């Protein structure tokens, strides 16, 4: 495999940023600066980074409550995300959203949605709008394998395929929905195969391998545009941490976690680079420093942020102006 060192460093830096950002989140959670539910993406970074590399600025992104990684990979500044986690007015959702509801209109980042499978119907509508308006855009919709059992998954895949909509469905199959292992939630455990039952072109990809994910997403987006039809990719991955901050992890054993940690996407990328023909190496120290400084700034920014006025509690329930 030929690996471009710049590409590799860029991926690595992004994945490292997500990793360190979330490690900082854990710390801040234990200091009670972050509250509510906090779902970490650690272990799954290659997916968001790989897919976002394939996404154009004009494409739309819909994610779940486990979306820090997607937000950062999409280019939302770490400080805006961190300020959000600290509930500050400077946060990307003005402190109203928190960890589960990151939004960014400028980057066409539509959440940050915390009803499992709730984003899929939105993706159908977003893509429908693009098709009706003849815009050359794709809607990228992320969800976990747990979402597959919900009725919304079924309705949305059918609509997307029936109407041949430009959607990239990205299933992040980390094997568990909270404590429920895939084999206890699906009668057919090959999710990509389930997608084929809607006549959607679907494939499985190693979700720990950022190059594989990016390649597959790029191919998928090309295919979507070429065939004007949705494409589905199932990324096989694993979350290294608990489901959220309130999870004793009774449902899986340590050995399994350890086994997967061997496939850490950051380590994998380093190894790929080392064994690649180029033989080049990452400047890990520099990257760590760079990332640490971004995160340091983000935390400082967030801590220095202001609280939204309580008088503005009801602001944004409705739009202020009704255009006539």
């Amino acid at each position, binding site marked *: 495999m030929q690996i471009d060192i710049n590409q590799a460093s860029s991926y690595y830096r992004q994945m490292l940023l997500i990793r360190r950002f979330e490690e900082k989140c854990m710390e801040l959670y234990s200091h009670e600066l972050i509250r509510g539910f906090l779902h970490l993406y650690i272990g799954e970074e290659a997916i968001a980074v790989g897919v976002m590399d394939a996404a154009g600025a004009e494409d*739309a992104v819909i994610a779940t409550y486990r979306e820090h990684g997607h937000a950062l990979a999409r280019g939302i500044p770490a400080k805006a995300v961190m300020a959000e986690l600290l509930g500050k007015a400077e*946060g*990307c*959702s*003005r*402190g*109203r*959203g928190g960890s589960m*509801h990151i*939004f*960014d*209109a400028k980057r066409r980042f*539509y*959440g*940050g*949605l915390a*009803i499992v499978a*709730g984003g*899929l*119907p*939105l*993706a*159908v*509508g*977003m*893509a*429908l*709008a*693009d098709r*009706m*308006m003849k815009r050359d855009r794709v*809607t990228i919709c992320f969800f976990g394998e747990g979402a597959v059992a919900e*009725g*919304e998954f079924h*309705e*949305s895949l*059918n*609509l997307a395929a*029936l109407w041949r909509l430009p959607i990239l469905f990205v299933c992040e199959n980390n094997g568990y929905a909270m404590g429920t292992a895939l084999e206890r939630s699906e009668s057919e455990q090959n999710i990509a195969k389930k997608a084929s039952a809607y006549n959607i072109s679907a494939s499985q990809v190693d979700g720990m391998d950022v190059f594989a994910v990016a390649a597959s997403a790029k191919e998928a987006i090309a295919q979507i545009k070429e065939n004007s039809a949705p494409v589905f990719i199932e990324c096989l991955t694993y979350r290294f941490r608990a489901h959220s901050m309130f999870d004793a992890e009774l449902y899986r054993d340590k050995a399994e976690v350890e086994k997967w940690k061997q496939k850490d996407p950051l380590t994998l990328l380093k190894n790929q680079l080392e064994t690649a023909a180029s033989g080049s190496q990452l400047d890990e120290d520099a990257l760590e420093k760079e990332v640490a400084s971004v995160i340091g700034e983000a935390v400082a920014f967030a801590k220095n942020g202001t609280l939204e006025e309580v008088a503005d509690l009801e*602001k*944004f*329930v*409705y*739009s202020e*102006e*009704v*255009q*006539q």
Partner: protein
Amino acid sequence: MSGTITYREAVRAAIQEAMQNDERVFLMGEDVGRYGGSYAVSKGLLEQFGGERIIDTPLSESGFTGAGIGAALNGMRPIVEIMTVNFSLLALDQIVNTAATMRYMSGGQFNVPLVIRMATGGGNQLGSQHSHSMEGWYAHVPGLKILTPATVQDAYDMLHLALKDPDPVLIFEHALLYNSKGELDKQAVPIAIGKASVHRQGKDISIITYGISLFKSLEAAEILSKEGIEAEVIDLRSLRPLDDETIMASVSKTHRVLIVDEGWKSGSVSAEIMARINEQAFYELDAPMQRVCSIEVPFPYARHLEQAALPQVDKIVTAAQKLMEEL
């Protein structure tokens, strides 16, 4: 530009004009196209606008309502038709958890200019899974606006108003009104969302109502008038926001309140109106407020039972008479 048409035609005309004037508007729902709409509202529109803008959906209420939200987020002005309010429960998660919250939880970045229309109400002997009046439920939810056109004029105006609104608006059309006839003046300036209408002036008692019950209330008012009781009849038009001002003004004039509402009594719109009058105009009341609502049963099929479950003119008259007897 004014004339007598049916409520159904008024809704259709409004959809038609909106689609002609704004390429972002489209209609989506079960059987809105080839079938012509389960209540024939959209008949002929497929031929006029084609299948790209009059979209027949599969039976997937949550899916296509959510798709309406997505399309609205992405610049369109979708009109989603749900056949009957009971089926809307399948889409409720999308409406309440997403459409109503999107603007707020994104800190004002995204709004959802979506219009959802659905048939509501009983009286057609459709039984326990097709007949309820749940608009009051929706009126509980911040982020939504809830309209209940009773007249032909409102059936027309409200669709246009809803399409102009940047936030999700739900329109409840009583199934028994589609064949009703009335005047439509397309040039008239529409009464804004959130404003009630006084349909009949009166000094003795305020009858506050909406939707099909408006007509039952007006009929009751005529009967009461013969007995010398002059009822003021208010059509709320919008259940969220509610027009407190018009309500309180009427209460301050009549000092007696009767609310007529086809929802099940407990937890209905009528309760909220009573609560607000109690809060804002308590000292104006000469007697306890009364309400005529639906009896709290899943609606029965048999006509005599269903009719007994619904608000009726005689029940309104009797309630008003009793209210007038109070000191």
